[in-house]
């Protein structure tokens, strides 16, 4: 297995499908993301476990494979950018930023404590490696449009990845950005919908349905892809394929089919875990399940 310290610049691989060794590494990093999330939320005593668990493979494929990044250089000008409308999943991203030496590892230990830069939502002014602050659902795709357009104006070749939730599609601003991104042919903009089917008050279908998602984005003029968001090899392959397509003239929206709470059986099957806290015995059970999980 590749060690985390070995990756200098990710992205731009020759082969479109990751090797078995790379896949094992990406799986390991998704596991790391979930376990660290449990550790950090234990400090805060409340947090968004399940929103991270649905996105763990997406985070892993982005940060350890798809994105052009330089270890320890969070301000590198030509880096690919990532931001998320579902900012409440930041607790799963912070350990990855530490793993990439963007922030000191011991900063994680003070997660959410007075004066620590790490809170429930990511703050770009406080946390190196966070490319854009979030917390207000619905803004991120617009900011991503701005980054992608500015990149083109400045003659830069970086990609902009924006992860949004399926519940987030209820925000009107998302559709303003959908129009804008397509109108301007923002080909370096890659959106990812973490379609885990749940939001705070219940299932997205019950609250305000957003289906058919794929057809909506197609109708708005985006290139769409559907992928199993927990099949890290498929996700990484898709990201590599998109980067290899230099002829694309449209933005991309990936619909990642995911399971809210993936990796912890009772979170996967029982609603009501959007926000939560695992007491020590439940946490031990969750850790055991994640350690044993084989996706």
């Amino acid at each position, binding site marked *: 297995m590749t060690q985390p310290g070995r990756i200098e610049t990710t992205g731009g691989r020759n082969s479109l499908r990751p090797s078995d060794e790379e896949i094992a590494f990406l799986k390991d990093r998704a596991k790391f993301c979930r376990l660290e999330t449990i550790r950090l939320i234990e400090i805060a005593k409340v947090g968004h476990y399940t929103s991270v668990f649905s996105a763990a493979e997406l985070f892993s494929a982005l940060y350890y494979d798809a994105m052009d990044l330089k270890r320890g250089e969070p301000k590198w*000008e030509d880096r690919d*950018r990532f931001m998320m409308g579902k900012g409440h999943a930041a607790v799963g991203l912070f350990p990855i930023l530490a793993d990439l030496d963007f922030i000191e590892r011991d900063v994680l230990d003070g997660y959410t404590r007075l004066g620590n830069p790490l809170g429930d939502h990511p*703050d*770009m*002014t406080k946390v190196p490696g966070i*490319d*854009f*602050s*979030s*917390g*207000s659902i619905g*803004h*991120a795709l*617009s*900011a*991503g*449009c*701005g*980054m*992608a*357009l*500015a*990149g083109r*104006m*400045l003659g*830069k070749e*970086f990609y*902009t990845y924006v992860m949004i939730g399926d519940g987030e599609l209820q925000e*009107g*601003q998302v559709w*303003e*950005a959908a*129009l*804008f991104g397509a*109108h301007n042919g923002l080909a370096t903009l890659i959106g990812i919908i973490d379609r885990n089917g749940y939001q705070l008050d219940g299932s997205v279908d019950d609250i305000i349905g957003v289906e058919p998602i794929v057809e909506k984005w197609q109708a708005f003029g985006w290139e769409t892809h559907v992928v199993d968001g927990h099949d890290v090899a498929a996700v990484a392959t898709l990201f590599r394929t998109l980067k290899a397509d230099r002829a694309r003239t449209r933005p991309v929206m990936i619909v990642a089919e995911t399971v809210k709470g993936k990796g912890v059986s009772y979170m996967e099957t029982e609603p009501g875990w959007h926000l939560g806290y695992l007491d020590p015995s439940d946490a031990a059970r969750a850790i055991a399940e994640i350690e044993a999980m084989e996706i």
Partner: protein
Amino acid sequence: MNKPLSDKSWQYRQLNAVTPGLDALSDALIELVDAGEPIVAGTADLQYSNGLAKFHALHPDRFVQFGISEQNMVSAAAGMAAVGMKPYVATFASFLALLCCEQIRMDVAYSKLPVRLIGHHAGISLGFYGTSHHATEDLAIMRSIANLTVIAPADGNQLKEVIKAANDYPHPIYIRIQRGRDPEVYAERQPFTIGKAISHYSGTDLTIIATGSTVHPALEATRALRAAGASVGFLDMATVKPIDRDAILEAAGHSPRILTVEEHNVLGGLGGAVAEVLASEGLPVKLTRHGIYDEYSLIAPPTHLYAHYELDAKGIEARATRLLEGRG
């Protein structure tokens, strides 16, 4: 490609008329682009109203048409600033400050990104377009957002200098302007310092403090009052935040009355900011806040409204005279 404008159209006349106030925004930005600055200008379907059509024609590669999607415009501008551009986005002050308040707070101000937000047609300057198009709350709202600087230039020449002064200013700025028809207060190229009031007169009976659109009429009123023998001072408080405390304290030191004049609700704007300074210093000064008295404006052409609300030179003079004569 858009078809060329009909030469009989209002848009064509807007684009080709020589209106220095309306051209100021474009002219200042064109100068910066020509100097190699990574400027980008955007608007939400109002390029003829704010004059950015001129910028658009000269630098189409640096112009972004956002359509009627103001919130997307503000968040996208923040994204552009985050990767090294200097974005200016302009729309009616009512839509910018009220509709996009949360995007301004989160994406621009909290994130400390050097976006310049141009709220034009502020106050009641859209006259009979009515309340939806009036902005008499924007100063109060923008002023309460941390990290955000708030400036209301008095005319096109001052706007140009504000933009020049703002070029390397590291904080986001809300710039409040009118319709581009303001009479000139300042000659061209009078340097502007963000955060510094401009003192025109010093007075021992009364000091009038105005900002943006009320500077010209309030200055005229000041001159009339002085000609009639009153000792009236005048401060142009173009930067509403951070407010020039020293200038206010100095005025309060030699004049027992202060009259703030703004095309804005008397709550929370310039008058509120001056009141905060005076109250926190415990100064025994009679402060009168003149503006829109916590109500929605009537419908009328702008000049008629200014007369009705005593926001033209005559009205301000009358308001100040009542104050000087102890009649409120």
